[in-house]
């Protein structure tokens, strides 16, 4: 059971990392990075690290995404 779960998590991690690094638009890339961070939380839980999982869930997929979005928010206005 745990083995199948870890294989699924590993495959999805690699796919999401490839999409985050190689997608053309910045906003898509940021969303893929957030999903990758959320999936790594699942990986931490499988490896019995609840402290790291809580921290990564709050910081990695919540706050860092917000900072990226704020950066895009302030830059888009000059283009218009």
């Amino acid at each position: 059971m745990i083995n199948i779960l870890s294989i699924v998590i590993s495959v999805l991690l690699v796919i999401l990392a490839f999409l985050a690094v190689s997608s053309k638009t910045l906003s898509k890339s940021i969303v893929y990075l957030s999903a990758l961070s959320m999936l790594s939380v699942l990986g931490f839980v499988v490896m019995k690290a609840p402290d790291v999982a809580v921290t990564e869930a709050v910081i990695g997929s919540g706050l860092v995404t917000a900072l990226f979005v704020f950066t895009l928010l302030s830059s888009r206005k000059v283009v218009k």
Partner: protein
Amino acid sequence: MKKVLSLLVVLALGFGIINSLNQNSSFPKFGEADVSDRVSDRYINKNVTEENEEVIFGEDGYETGSSNFVTSIVANYRSFDTLGEVTVLFISAFGVALLFSKDSKRVSLNFKPNFMLRVGSRALFGLIIMTGIYISVHGHLTPGGGFPGGTMIASSILLLYLSNDSFRTKIKGFKLLEGFMGSLYVLIGVAGIYVTGYFLENFLDTGVVGDLFSAGIIPIVYVIIGLKVGSEIASIIDNFLTEEVS
């Protein structure tokens, strides 16, 4: 051409890492690590300076009374590392504030917050800030601790920024809280020198493993870390939401 070259470099690196780890006999295979062979065994049995065979939940008289081993490493055995880490975070927040020092007008959101968003975020603000404080206070019993708790406090303030178009925190107050908490952390370390002779030594009674009031200075240090991290990240968020007055 450049992509092919960098792909070759990356593949060589990955092959090198996997090959050298497979050749190394002292590196354990995945899932076969031997904890009793490592220094962590002493952290788990709480016997770095004294001799314990085993630690039982609900007993007293151990080196650190924290039932969460990760917390006992972060806030007690390796507390000096954590002091350095908090300093790194302070320097990065200071750098962000320095880069945006001329900006003073708030970035306007391109939507108008409606009634539901305003009321709902104000109700959620209380819940999220209470969860953050709960996680910081119970860092020695449950997973979590000062770092995620402080970040939750900062994200509740982020919610206020999103719900109100003209909301700005009082930056002076956050700077004051942050500096006060940082110096309090160092003062606790210096108090350790006076009482026991070592910097950041746990000089209070460690109590019963599993009680709320246990583990000596660990909950105090973790609450201090939570407030400091929360105020630092809140000031980073405020700096990101400002722009230059044109």
